[in-house]
């Protein structure tokens, strides 16, 4: 059964427009390779990182501010140099990218889930429910994500003791990011749902007697996933940037834990004192990762959006 379906799936994939477009665009192939490389090395960071930036015993202040290996004063054991606390920058970047990617995945995932439910309900049921959900979306969209994050951070800071707050930093940041992304998903899903619900296959399901919930999940959901996938990919990049921004501002991940944003924040202090590698390499990593993801998002949009074909 399984071998049969994969046996049919592979040639179908090789024949599809998606694969054809992918093959024909070196930019997309490059983006895919870079994204895959960065994501897999970030997720495997505990295994492949040369040092453990979380282990206080492995950190030696004597090693602080060592430049990258190819500089005169560089050491081969710290390939990209170290920061002011003596942490290996390469390891910190790997761990930091992992944090960024986890934040991106979870916040976009939560936003898509919320946006799908809200959009499907608003688009399919219409009337008062539609009006209510869309006004909530409108209100949500008037708050910049940074303000939402500051608000949540402020509330959690005043309610929780400091240690607990630091532990919950990741949750706060994910909450803030998904709150700022879900309205976009909800709007897109609502628009697509309103188109799909007037198609005759939905009416056929209603004539059979299917209740609204099943029609939404079984019939409409699979048909609105295309645009959602595109929005999710592009917002994955936005979320990673958002995490970096918030951490840079000191609202997000505490400075003791590496994330791309905190690294850039630390590096910012040394930007004009010569140790610019601390900000340069995390910054480059962030730019490259977001660029690769956005290019993949563009490809996905070209493949899935029939209007652009």
């Amino acid at each position, binding site marked *: 059964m399984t071998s049969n379906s994969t046996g049919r799936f592979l040639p179908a994939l090789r024949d599809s427009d998606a694969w054809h477009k992918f093959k024909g665009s070196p930019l997309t192939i490059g983006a895919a390779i870079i994204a895959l490389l960065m994501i897999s090395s970030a997720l495997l960071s505990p295994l492949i990182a040369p040092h453990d930036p979380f282990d206080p015993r492995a950190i030696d202040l004597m090693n602080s501010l060592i430049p990258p290996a190819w500089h005169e004063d560089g050491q081969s054991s710290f390939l990209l140099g170290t920061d002011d606390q003596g942490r290996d920058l390469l390891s910190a970047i790997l761990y930091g990218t992992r944090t960024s990617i986890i934040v991106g995945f979870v916040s976009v995932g939560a936003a898509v889930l919320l946006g799908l439910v809200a959009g499907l309900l608003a688009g399919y049921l219409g009337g008062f429910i539609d009006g209510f959900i869309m006004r909530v979306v409108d209100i949500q969209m008037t708050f910049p994500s940074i303000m939402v994050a500051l608000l949540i951070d402020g509330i959690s800071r005043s309610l929780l003791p400091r240690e607990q707050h630091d532990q919950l930093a990741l949750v706060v940041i994910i909450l803030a990011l998904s709150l700022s992304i879900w309205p976009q998903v909800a709007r897109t899903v609502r628009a697509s749902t309103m188109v799909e619900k007037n198609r*005759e*296959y939905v009416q*056929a399901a209603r004539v*059979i*007697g299917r209740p609204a919930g099943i029609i939404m999940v079984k019939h409409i959901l699979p048909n609105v996933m295309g645009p959602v996938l595109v929005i999710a990919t592009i917002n994955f990049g936005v979320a990673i940037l958002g995490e970096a921004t918030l951490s840079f501002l000191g609202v997000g991940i505490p400075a003791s834990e590496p994330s791309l944003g905190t690294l850039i924040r630390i590096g910012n202090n040394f930007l004009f004192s010569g140790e610019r590698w601390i900000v340069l390499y995390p910054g480059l990593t962030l730019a490259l990762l977001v660029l690769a993801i956005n290019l993949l998002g563009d490809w996905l949009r070209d493949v899935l959006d029939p209007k652009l074909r």
Partner: protein
Amino acid sequence: MEASVRPLLKISGLRVEYPGRRGTFVAVENMDLEVGRGEIVGVVGESGAGKSTIGSAIMQLLEPPGRIAAGTIELEGQRLDQLDATEMRAIRGKRISMIFQDPLTSLNPLYTVGKQLIQTIRTHSSRSEAAARQEATALLNAVGIPDPEIRIDQYPHQFSGGMRQRVVIALVLCTNPDLIIADEPTTALDVSVQAQILDLIKKLAAERNIGVMLITHDMGVIAQTTNRVAVMYRGRVVETGKTHQIIHAPVHEYTKSLIGAVPRADVKLDRFPRISYIEAATPAAKVFDIETHWLGRTRPDAKVAQPASVGPLVSVDGLTMRFVVRHAILPQNRVLFDAVKDLSLDIQEGEVMGLVGESGSGKSTVARILSGLYRPSSGSMRFDGQDVLKMSRSADVNAIRRQVQMIFQDPYSSLNPRMRVDSIVAEPIQHHRLASSRDETYAIVDDLLEVVGLGKAAGRKFPHEFSGGQRQRISIARALATRPRFLICDEPTSALDVSIQAQILNLLKDLRSALKLTVLFISHDLPVVRQMCDRVAVMKKGELCELAATDDLFNRPRHPYTTELLRLMPRI
């Protein structure tokens, strides 16, 4: 004999190709056609025959990567296929014009009709604004638009579909073209409007000595309008000649089949003639015995003995469906529209009731009310003696849902593109728990697919792998999967080619008699209704005009609207 008998348009040996990564698709091959001045030449064929491609090839409007691979196109001796883009632009619109199917999209909705006409006139000649306006008014008058002085300053949305197509024709005439290519000019229009537009095209061709190439799928349009006709099949012209000769004495097998498949309006046939030329590839539907077959099992026929179901199966009384066209806070400012007004109708068990009307007559709304998609604003609806609208228990409603099923018009949107065909057909069985296990469900699905003539291999595929006719078979299988008593067919074949239409109608006829279904058959096509129905109801603007037995209605129409519809019906 004059020396200048050179035809206006001469196409010889034309071959149009679409190179693609799955090989080259030849859309038109070895095509010869001539159009003279003042002559209307029809190009007829079914979808995919390549007839529209010819129009695009003449105009150099082929979508890339399509290209002319061989042959010549000459306009009074000038080779069109060798012109470059700039030279062609001088000819396109000026000497050759096109009329498209949808008049709504061929006019710019942001400008008044007059502005579009005047602009076109002034682009092609050096006339003053006032002179151009005068000319535009004269043209609107010539295409039969009443009060052209007033209507010239109106926007396209203020015109009806037929009037809009007249404006498009006026727009085409602005430049005094020698040749007009009309690509399905009346397909989007009602019968009554279609007749007027065709008359107009005929009149203009004769008066202004314009050559017209009329591309259509409709043999009736060809018979009424054209002088000569070319019949196309899969990119080739299979037969060409004088229209009456082709219609009355076709030589080629395909032409014979095509003409045979057009439903006849004069006599009722038992079945549509089988089209051997096209049908060869489709497997025959499985023959089954209703006594033993799943479709015949546990039908509520036992109930027939009960006194409750002596009356009609479906009965509606005073049905009104009111839509709010424009919302307002104060009720008196609301704009309301009655799609169906005070409709009363009885449908007997086992009967095929036809419902006829032009677009906007409310016939689809009736279908949606009867199938439970809409709840009427007022009136009552009984099914098998039970008042459907007063039901409150969902189990009762579900029982009615199972017995009433619907086949939709558009085979391209009535199947969920993300579901496999077997899941589509299995859904009603699972919902109504008509089978005890998954295996039993899918055995029934396989069988149903065979019953509608698809074969069980179809189940593992997705809808997009099927043609329009095959998709409509899947729709029928899905509708049968609940073992319904009452089947609503809303224009089930209007999106299909005439040969496929004949197959689907035959299938519906067979199933109806085997399963003793009660059917509401909705159509705008009178000949089809004559072939399918026992009684016919005619609707106009939401109201019932006439209800009579089919033969009575066709032979002795009583309502003037019915008489008018019958008069305008295209005939071969």
